[in-house]
């Protein structure tokens, strides 16, 4: 028969064991997924609804780093204990990370089932990891300056736009890098014809250069530039009550792809959760939510956007076919030489 004293002792022992063990159980249940993500409107939506819903579904917490630069931080952390579990960047940085063994190459439908529904560009041989959204890089222009709306990339070289055209500091901006490759295609033998690209770049002077796409948006809004290289979402979002005298042109030669890519460092200790997050971001409801919030084209072809978005974004196979994906592996291998050359061309 169990005495009262023994019962109390046993109870106290069990309680103590439960107390000591509880933090580890709690810890196991509330794993923290460390991700990188964008700021701005995207970041607002992520914090307000996307991430809380994921945390609830997967009983975890998500630590979202919005503070650039992501790649140097990943490079500086240990490969077997990386700073991030999910690495969200544009495609060019994913290729740099892959070269150093910091991210995985590809995913299969076993790891990320929703990959089965993405457009081919999202998992093409030009992509490391998987693309969740893309934007079209083309030409933004003022509609109130009496300019003939551009149709071709060549229109940016119109002498009337001298000092009124906008571009990027090519060494630090992937849109600028895409534009340089596009110049090679338009004026030379292809995206990799750098000599033709340099020559064409010379002809674009005088040109106003900025670091970030956000700056290009403001330069267009303030009419400091009349026409500039920009991604479609940077123009389309000025609509409705927020309407401004700017519009976007998808040049006839095609638009360059500005992909939002997710990947997982091989050393992540939360790989399954990381795959689940990528799958979640490719889910049609999340794709629709984010696409309509920030005017990004969803990679999942099953997503049905509201009419105004559907009319403009890359949501049909025909429109997706206009996307041109740069070979970032090729570009990154030559980046130092390209940077030196374009800096010399655009100096001053």
């Amino acid at each position: 028969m169990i005495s009262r004293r023994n019962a109390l002792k046993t109870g106290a022992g069990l309680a103590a064991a439960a107390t000591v063990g509880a933090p580890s159980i709690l810890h196991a249940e509330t794993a923290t997924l460390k991700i990188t993500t964008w700021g701005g409107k995207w970041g607002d939506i992520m914090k307000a609804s996307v991430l809380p819903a994921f945390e609830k579904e997967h009983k975890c917490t998500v630590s979202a780093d919005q503070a650039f630069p992501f790649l140097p931080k990943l490079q500086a952390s240990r490969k077997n204990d990386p700073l991030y579990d999910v690495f969200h960047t544009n495609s060019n940085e994913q290729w740099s990370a892959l070269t150093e063994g910091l991210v995985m190459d590809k995913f299969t439908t076993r790891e990320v089932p929703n990959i089965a529904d993405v457009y081919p560009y999202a998992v093409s041989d030009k992509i490391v990891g998987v693309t969740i959204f893309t934007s079209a890089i083309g030409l933004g222009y003022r509609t109130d300056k009496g300019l003939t709306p551009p149709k071709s990339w060549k229109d940016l070289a119109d002498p009337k736009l001298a000092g009124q055209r906008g571009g990027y500091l090519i060494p630090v901006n992937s849109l600028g890098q895409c534009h340089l490759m596009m110049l090679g295609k338009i004026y030379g033998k292809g995206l990799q014809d750098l000599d033709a690209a340099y020559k064409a770049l010379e002809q674009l002077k005088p040109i106003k250069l900025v670091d970030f796409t956000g700056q290009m948006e403001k330069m267009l809004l303030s009419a400091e530039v009349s026409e500039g290289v920009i991604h479609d979402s940077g123009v389309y979002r000025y609509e409705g009550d927020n309407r401004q005298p700017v519009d976007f042109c998808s040049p006839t030669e095609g638009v360059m792809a500005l992909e939002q890519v997710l990947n997982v460092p091989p050393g992540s200790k939360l790989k399954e959760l990381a795959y689940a997050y990528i799958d979640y971001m490719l889910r049609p409801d999340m794709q629709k939510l984010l696409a309509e919030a920030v005017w990004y084209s969803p990679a999942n072809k099953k997503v049905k956007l509201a009419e105004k978005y559907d009319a403009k974004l890359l949501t049909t196979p025909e429109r997706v076919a206009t996307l041109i994906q740069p070979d970032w592996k090729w570009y990154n291998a030559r980046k130092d030489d390209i940077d030196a050359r374009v800096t010399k061309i655009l100096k001053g």
Partner: protein
Amino acid sequence: MSAAPNKVPFDPGRAAYVTLNVVLLGFLLAPIAIVLVFAFNPTPYISFPPVGVSLRWFDKFFAGSDFMNALWLSLWIAACVLVLAVVIGGACALALARGNLPARGFFTAFFMSPLMLPAILTGLALFQSYLLVGIGRPVWGLIMAHTLIAVPYVLRTTLAVLHNFDRRIEEAAAVLGASPLRVFFEVTLPLIRPGVFAGGVFAFIVSFDQFPVSLFLVVPKGETLPVVLFNYMKFDLDGAIAAASMVSILLALAVVLVLERLIGLKAYVKL
């Protein structure tokens, strides 16, 4: 014949000197004027002349939880850095000036070295060190990093005061029976206080505005104001940035004015 008025003869040298000062002052103040115009202009981009006066960007700044959290964190870190830098920098300066240390020049250069390295490298090196020892990126790690950068300012200003210090005053106090501790708190500290606190002001401002070191050491939901502004600027370059800049400038100015009222920084300026 009436006496000629006391005309100051034209001095070309003086005129050039005044002109140069006005130009330099204009060069220093022009960016602040541009920020001011942008902060009160209602358009979401820099436009000149301004189309009106509005407080919408200040509203956005003060209503944004990201901005406010970052502002308070920056202020809190800067306050901690001020205290730590004053204590460490002041003690180092006393040791270097009074300690008869061997290799004094080496130690002075050693403590000043954080100013010689690019801050971005200091930030990256600390980031790697923290990860290697497995402590992650705690707030106290950020405070230590800022302190590292801020100590040389206190060290330099305190050494400057100590250089002009008349030690006979301390000796007189000691002869009259004051203990070393009493001599320090009642004689030495009041006399070196302007230098120490001037360094403290620099430490506060250096920490509050610190970007390159913080860039690698901040954590999600624990970002300082300069880092939040940098990231905000990449996506939304609107007047909230200018409003935040105005608030930062006013805060820095307030700190200087408060310290001037409390301890009289002018005394240090005269040194």
